[in-house]
């Protein structure tokens, strides 16, 4: 079998297996940046690693792979994240 990648280890020859988990979402987290106190709880507890820390120290939710579980909204001490239902056309 010809390997496409240069890895010597048994890693997939065609790269990463990625599931488009962003399509699963029935509700999405929306962050209120005014209320955010930058504690980072959302980044710490996000199971999909979808919260990013920006250079200015603030946090941003990336929706590419977010499954909409609601953990960030539940764990946010300040209630700065709200879960909003997603419409089908989005």
């Amino acid at each position, binding site marked *: 079998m010809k390997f496409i990648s240069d890895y010597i280890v048994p890693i997939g020859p065609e*790269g990463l297996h990625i599931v488009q988990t962003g399509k*699963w979402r029935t509700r999405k987290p929306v962050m209120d940046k005014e209320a955010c106190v930058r504690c980072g709880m959302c980044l710490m507890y996000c199971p*999909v690693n979808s919260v990013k*820390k920006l250079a200015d120290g603030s946090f941003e939710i990336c929706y590419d792979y977010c499954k909409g579980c*609601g953990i960030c909204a539940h764990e946010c001490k300040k209630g700065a994240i709200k879960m909003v239902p997603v419409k089908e056309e989005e």
Partner: protein
Amino acid sequence: MNVIDKLAIYEDQISPGISACVGCNVELTLRTCMKVLGPDTIFAIPPGCMGGVGVVGWDKKSGAKTPVFFPLLDNVASMLAGIKLHYEHIGRHVNVVAFAGDGASVDAGMQCLSGAAERGDKLIYICYDNEGYMNTGYQRSGSTTKGAWTSTTPVINGKGGKKQNKKDFPMIMAMHDLPYMATMSPAYIPDMVRKLEKAMAVESGLVYLHVYNPCLTGWGCTSDESIEACRLSVETNFAPLYEVENGSFQMSVDVKNPKPVREFIRKFKKFRHLTDEDIDALQELTDRKIDRLRKLCTL
């Protein structure tokens, strides 16, 4: 550097989209562990939830950026021991890690794990304990709590559930006189990161890390409360956080005023049929275990 910065900077070693259940706290555990362990890691995931969700790959694709193996349910530790020996032979330092479920550690894989612990193979063995074979349809395991509903211990007219008590597996591993053994919880991430860093520095033998992960789908709980459930398991002393370093026990999170176990039990559908007597029995067991653990800490 604090934990948030570390987690923000470290590269995620797992594929960004894996098909774990919505809100799965094992996915959080896996990503956090692999972030801390870093790119110089070879790991193995036996059949189980994290194997099934695509971390071990699909067709010709891999589910992780580091080499990942898919061993059998019962030979994880033995296979990794061989890999570690090879890398020691060629003189390259790598973290050789197992990320196994409770079926592959507590039940089927116990003898090879116990053997590797006794031989002192330099592995990091992480067990995510979700109390059953959750990936194949919620069957009971040696780690399931007494009274719990599973698909092989059904509840009919309010009667049934598992008849036997849970194995106290972290304690069994601690009695192997490991250089380092710890229990972790995804609700206490800074504690988890500290323990993983400690585990990476151990050079003298096998490190066993036990993570208690309530399973949302199999236990019946909403995805929002995923972390809340993990936190309650520690706050009720149902799954206490402690570490054992060369035989000396230490509590990592010492809960001074524990909440009643009832609060944790009532969160899940799989315990819905339990009577007050059943819950009192679980409370008594929890109290007995935490007393024993506190006594071990004073030695």
